[in-house]
């Protein structure tokens, strides 16, 4: 049984993924997120208030299991739109603290957008997720939940 592995292994795989299959990164993130949440929630009870609790779960447990920190801020307009603020996004922290490489950075958000989308899909929530680099290494993830549409 494998124990822990170095974080850098995931980072290297991610860099190469963005390079080698740029059009498929989000889809691969989706598949990964969908399966990953199954593993992560094995010992957990069902959530009370589905949508908000799921979003809190994404921002806390889900995020810290991948990035070793929680999302810095979660905002919602209470009608299905959520904005996740991340002050130090791991996949872009080593690129730049300023405007340099700003145009390259969105590529490095796609996998994580897919992860979130896949995770939500596993909870039966259909959503659109997009990422925006605001002030590197800070970025936001916009989650728009589509209610009443069956997945």
């Amino acid at each position, binding site marked *: *049984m*494998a*124990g*822990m*592995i*170095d*974080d*850098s*292994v*995931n980072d*290297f*795989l*991610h*860099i*190469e*993924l963005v*390079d*080698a*299959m740029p059009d*498929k990164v989000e*889809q*691969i*993130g989706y*598949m*990964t997120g969908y*399966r*990953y949440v199954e*593993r*992560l*929630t094995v*010992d*957990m*009870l069902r959530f009370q208030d589905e949508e908000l609790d799921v979003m809190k*779960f994404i921002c806390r*447990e889900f995020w*810290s*299991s*991948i990035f*070793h920190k929680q999302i810095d801020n979660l905002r919602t307009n209470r009608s299905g739109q959520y904005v996740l603020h991340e002050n130090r996004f791991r996949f872009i922290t080593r690129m730049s603290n300023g405007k340099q490489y700003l145009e390259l950075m969105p590529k490095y958000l796609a996998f994580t957008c897919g992860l979130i989308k896949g995770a939500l899909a596993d909870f039966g929530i259909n959503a659109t997720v997009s990422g925006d680099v605001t002030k590197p290494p800070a970025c936001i993830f916009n989650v728009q939940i589509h209610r009443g549409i069956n997945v």
Partner: protein
Amino acid sequence: MPPPVDTKKVNTDLFALTYGSIISQLLIDCENVDEVNKQLDRMGYNIGLRMIEDYLAKSSSPKCRDLKDVAEKIQHAFQMYLNVTPGVDHWSQANDEFSLILYSNPLTEFVELPDSLQTMNYLNILPGVIRGALEMVSIPVRAWIKSDHLKGDHETEIRIQSVNKK
């Protein structure tokens, strides 16, 4: 409250699942299984090129003296990155070829290979990583999967052969 998450453990899961998703996608995108193998090898090679820097920085290991030394370092790198220690065995007579034996590894933890994919090397990224990493320290090698646990072999064997070293 949900139980605390063991971040190190789930990291392994994330890695294994990401790799699995990549393979799934490649199987959809590529025309045939050979193409998947090739693509995995190429990705591994590119990772190896970057990874060697990280390895040298973290291990501060000196230059390799001979291939025996190389084998030991690879063993160490596997321990460091994947938390498994492969065996080193089956040296050729001229000592220019050896095998890494993997008994288990995190990448195949959730994997079952269907009969239709018997020509695919699920772990084909690993020989690529080894080849890329060694190339950056001027040790050209050929590396390939010789036997595969997922295909019913007793263990997974990665063969490494040194080429035209002067």
